[in-house]
């Protein structure tokens, strides 16, 4: 039902960060969020970022989306410097960021409105996306009338609106119940596979990261750095029944071990 468009070329690096440093200026001086981070993401790949709160996961996504400057290093997105406003990136923020004066439908239609796209096709797509996230009976509700989980689903539908080839998902379904979360994760995996997206997911759930990803990047804090880069060798399409397999459990353990280094390091 969601139409397929050929945007990703399916080969080569979609996103790369090389030795990127990020320092935030703060009232009391400066905060080194991470030092010399390097990440390579191939086109069509699905990776997850896991790590403790404050290690800079959201900041990495913002740098890729061109929303946050960085202090040194090289970042390339589709061969170019990161730049805000390229519509082939769909960024779902950690907060839903819905416009309180817009109904569910108007919020999902916002990207089209800004792109001056008034076509019937885009109107239909808005409805299809709302249907996908299970809110077709709530078209006219305002965000204040939605639960946190419903708000996140609206934000997810909006993220997909312009059919971006790169998906940056910052804890997209954190406010959803287990059941809907699993359903939407399966949808994300489907969209990623079928429409050849390049996706980065930030999550606090290690099993979720394993289930969704080709690779999981374990990050540590103070300063942020890569602790482990774990390839997930599970067949696609991914379905929740993989969770019981030994391969799955091993991957989860590998990530846990990689992350545990920080805790020991922090305690020392």
């Amino acid at each position: 039902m969601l139409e397929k468009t050929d945007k990703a070329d399916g080969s080569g690096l979609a996103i790369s960060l090389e030795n990127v440093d990020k320092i935030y200026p703060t009232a009391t001086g400066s905060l080194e969020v991470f030092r010399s981070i390097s990440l390579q993401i191939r086109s069509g790949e699905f990776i997850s970022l896991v790590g403790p709160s404050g290690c800079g996961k959201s900041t990495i996504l913002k740098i890729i989306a061109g929303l946050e400057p960085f202090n040194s290093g090289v970042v390339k997105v589709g061969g170019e410097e990161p730049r805000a406003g390229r519509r082939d990136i769909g960024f779902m923020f950690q907060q839903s960021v819905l416009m309180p004066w817009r109904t569910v439908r108007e919020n999902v239609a916002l990207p089209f409105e800004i792109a001056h796209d008034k076509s019937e096709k885009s109107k239909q797509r808005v409805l299809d996306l709302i249907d996908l996230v299970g809110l077709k009976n709530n078209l006219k509700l305002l965000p204040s009338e939605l639960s946190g989980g419903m708000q996140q689903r609206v934000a997810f539908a909006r993220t997909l609106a312009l059919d971006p080839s790169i998906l940056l998902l910052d804890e997209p379904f954190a406010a959803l119940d287990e059941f809907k979360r699993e359903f939407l994760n399966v949808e994300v995996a489907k969209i990623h596979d079928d429409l050849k997206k390049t996706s980065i997911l930030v999550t606090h759930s290690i099993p979720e990261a394993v289930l969704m990803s080709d690779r999981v990047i374990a990050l540590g804090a103070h300063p942020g750095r890569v602790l482990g880069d774990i390839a997930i060798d599970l067949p696609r399409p991914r379905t929740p029944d993989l969770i019981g397999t030994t391969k799955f459990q091993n991957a989860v353990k590998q990530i846990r071990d990689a992350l545990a280094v920080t805790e020991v390091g922090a305690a020392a």
Partner: protein
Amino acid sequence: MSATHVQNAVRPLEVPLYQRKTVRIGLPILILLITCLSWEGLSRSGVVNPITLPPISAIAFAFFELLGKRFFWEAVIVTLQETMLGFVIGASVGLVIGAMTGTFPMFRVALFPFIVAFQNTPRVALAPVFLTWFGFGMTSKVVMAAVICFFPVVINTVAGLAAVDQNGRLLYKTLGASTRQTFFKFTLPSAAPITFAGIKTALTLALLGAIVAEFVGGSEGLGVLVKEFNFQLRVDMAFAVILVLASIGLILYGLIEIAERKIIFWVKK
């Protein structure tokens, strides 16, 4: 047979006494009645001089007498014109200056200290000066009303713009929105609720500004009527005009509440 069902029926929650409709409407009316009756009694019994405190009934008569007078309606129109003109001018200039102050840091750094200083000055003190500058006509009243409602609008517009969600700004950036789109489709509506609170205050203040300016020096308007009736010791008439002013204030407030509910419909009270 149906008795068992009745047992299971949900009992409505106990409504506190003060929330009951009869109490919420009845109590204020009762207080009004008591006040009027004791006022009437006080005045008629001669405990206070009926010239300085005329009985409520006399004020009611005066009120209806006023309604039939041409000069009264002319005064209403003058004061309303001063208030509305002052409000529109003061609020518009306030919106523009506030938007610039809230948007451009250079503006903010340059202007904000003065705005705060003026905000804390009793601005009605300027009324005599405006009288000297703009004369006894309507202009000095319009200027007073405008100046007095300018400040809450500026302050609230700046506050509204400062409260805009930074993540929302980032979202519009990722969507490739133009500066214009971001302003009209994001910044403006985001700042609207707080800005509108300033506009509401401004309308109430505009009426105040017009009346004060009329007191200080003028030949027409409801403020002038209050003053003149007072000089003639027609306190009943003066009270009747004050009653009219109260009604005008209430009506203006009601209108702007309706406008508010239409414009920032997403803010639930």
